[in-house]
């Protein structure tokens, strides 16, 4: 009986729909579904073709379908795919860690301390951002030769990490500074009276509060090396050193050793680490921890 009563009640917060609004709503749903289709259809094709054993060099839509792992096998046996994965993950993790470490310090310093050249240096960072990374290629080469002369073991992959992290530090400093700015400085004061030094204020008070933002920064810097094809292909010479994006590109850039289904399979596998990281960080990504710190 209670259920029946509930059915008759109009519980939505919005006013009831008029016929015209129903039509508009239908149209927006159609548009949204179309949009979803445009995104999901190619993805579905990638998944399907990567498991389709009847395809060889090119991906063909339609035709016979035969489930097999042959393209994956090809990647692991004929190509140094595992090597690429390891390279990429090492570079990505190193980039993420380096970025996080530096951004933590720079973001906190720019937000909390007043020093000479604070505004000017912030401005400089912002302006340098507008120059595309690729323009710096000559500078990268020079830098690399200087560094590798000083440190013999300095590999090209390490250099790639430095380039990625350098770009990430600059842009993320802004984001983190803005986020820390929104935290009341009374928290710092309270921590200081409670017995914290400068570093402890950051580690014990500020860092846990900005954790959602740090998680996002980590995620972005981690994904970067997975997506970038250009820099590794120029800086890394040896296919054994390639990252995933560059390595996979060798499967489709030449008609002689073209292997599109393997490319699709590789793409599918590339998504895995990112998805895993996403799931792992999901809890941290939930923001809004800062509410309740000061009276709201």
């Amino acid at each position, binding site marked *: 009986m209670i259920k029946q009563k509930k059915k008759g009640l109009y519980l939505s917060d919005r006013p009831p729909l008029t016929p015209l609004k129903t039509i508009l709503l239908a149209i927006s749903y159609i548009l949204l579904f179309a949009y979803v289709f445009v995104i999901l259809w190619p993805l579905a094709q990638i998944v399907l073709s990567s498991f389709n054993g009847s395809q060889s060099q090119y991906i063909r839509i339609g035709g016979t379908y035969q489930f097999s792992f042959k393209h994956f096998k090809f990647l692991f046996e004929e190509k140094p795919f595992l090597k690429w994965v390891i390279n990429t993950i090492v570079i990505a993790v190193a980039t993420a860690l380096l970025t996080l470490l530096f951004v933590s310090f720079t973001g906190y310093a720019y937000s909390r301390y007043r020093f000479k050249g604070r505004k000017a240096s912030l401005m400089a960072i912002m302006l340098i951002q507008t120059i595309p990374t690729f323009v710096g290629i000559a500078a990268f080469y020079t830098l690399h030769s200087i560094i590798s002369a000083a440190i013999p073991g300095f590999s090209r992959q390490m250099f790639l990490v430095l380039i990625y992290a350098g770009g990430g530090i600059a842009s993320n400093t802004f984001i983190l500074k803005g986020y820390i700015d929104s935290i009341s400085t*009374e928290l710092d004061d309270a921590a200081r009276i*409670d017995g914290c030094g400068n570093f402890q204020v950051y580690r014990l008070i500020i860092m846990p509060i900005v954790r959602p933002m740090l998680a996002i920064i980590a995620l972005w810097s981690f994904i970067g090396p997975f997506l970038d094809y250009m820099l590794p292909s120029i800086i890394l010479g040896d296919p054994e050193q390639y990252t995933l994006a560059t390595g996979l590109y060798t499967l489709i850039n030449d008609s002689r050793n073209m292997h599109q289904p393997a490319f699709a399979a590789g793409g599918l596998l590339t998504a895995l680490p990112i998805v895993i990281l996403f799931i792992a960080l999901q809890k941290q990504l939930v923001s809004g921890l800062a509410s*309740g*710190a000061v009276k709201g």
Partner: protein
Amino acid sequence: MKIQLNNIGKKYEGRENFTIRNIDLEIDDKDFCVILGPSGCGKSTLLRMIAGLTSITEGDLFFGGKRMNSVEPKDRDIAMVFQSYALYPHMTVYENMAFSLKMRKERKSVIHERVLEAAELLQITEYLYSKPSEISGGQRQRVALGRAIVRKADVFLMDEPLSNLDAKLREHMRVELVRLHQSLETTSIYVTHDQTEAMTMATKIVLLDQGKIQQVGSPTLFYEKPANLFVAGFIGSPTMNIFRGKIKHGHFLSSEEDFVIEPKAKDRELLKPFEGKKVAMGIRSERFIAGKADKNAINVKVDVIEMLGKEQLLYCQFPNGKECVISEPGYFEYAVNEEHNFHLDIEGLHFFDEETTERIN
């Protein structure tokens, strides 16, 4: 602990003038000292200097005879309650309260004991494992107090801790804070812009304005003998009535010459040097006596009546438009636009030199 401020001043970087300067102050052990002043007078700066959160530009700060200027806040043995409470949002109430002890590497059992003790005192035991975002403003305020209590610090600093509470809760917490102060037996320094809080809680009030101390003393002293016109206008609600005028033949003559006041003999003696000079006369609203009299009488028209129950505030106008506030018992019957006779209680008159604004009697 006795706190001593010797000629303390603060100048912020990039500012032209000192925010606060030449502050000499002594706060005795177990005093409840309220630093009072309008916003922007430098009272928070003063408190932050005592806490060590802001550096001292000039002068010396002593805690029990020890110079504290360059001692880190964590080593000053102070506890502070902030206006925004500044609770750590990622910690539970328990962790918030335990944090300062944990930083001092206190034993776990000691921490637990002290936190529970403070929680019981403040009646927040049931929220100990909630996050600050899950509890109400009043409860957060208690947690902020609790965090300061567990330290058992020698000096207890509070920066407008009640300003975010609603009126009822504020009234309640005022009493609680005084009780707390008495039971903790610490030296408390409390910053506020609310003169009611200062009057009700303090054993010693320090009134600041424009970076200078205007008066130091007990609440009674502030009410009965304000040191200058600023103090007279700041302390007391409703604000003291101030009449401008001059002294003529030993009597106070208002500037529009519409009434004459004959001060008591002692005041007349003190007013002698001001014969013919400009003087301001202050009288609190409750020092008007209803009814006609031969001397010191005024006749005013009631403009607005504020009924407060036990008393009523009559906002009155003189025939020339000058205004004054008179409070009378609530059961007296007044109506708007009526004309009434009052006379002034000469025991409750305050005289100020117009030039220096300093108190005369």
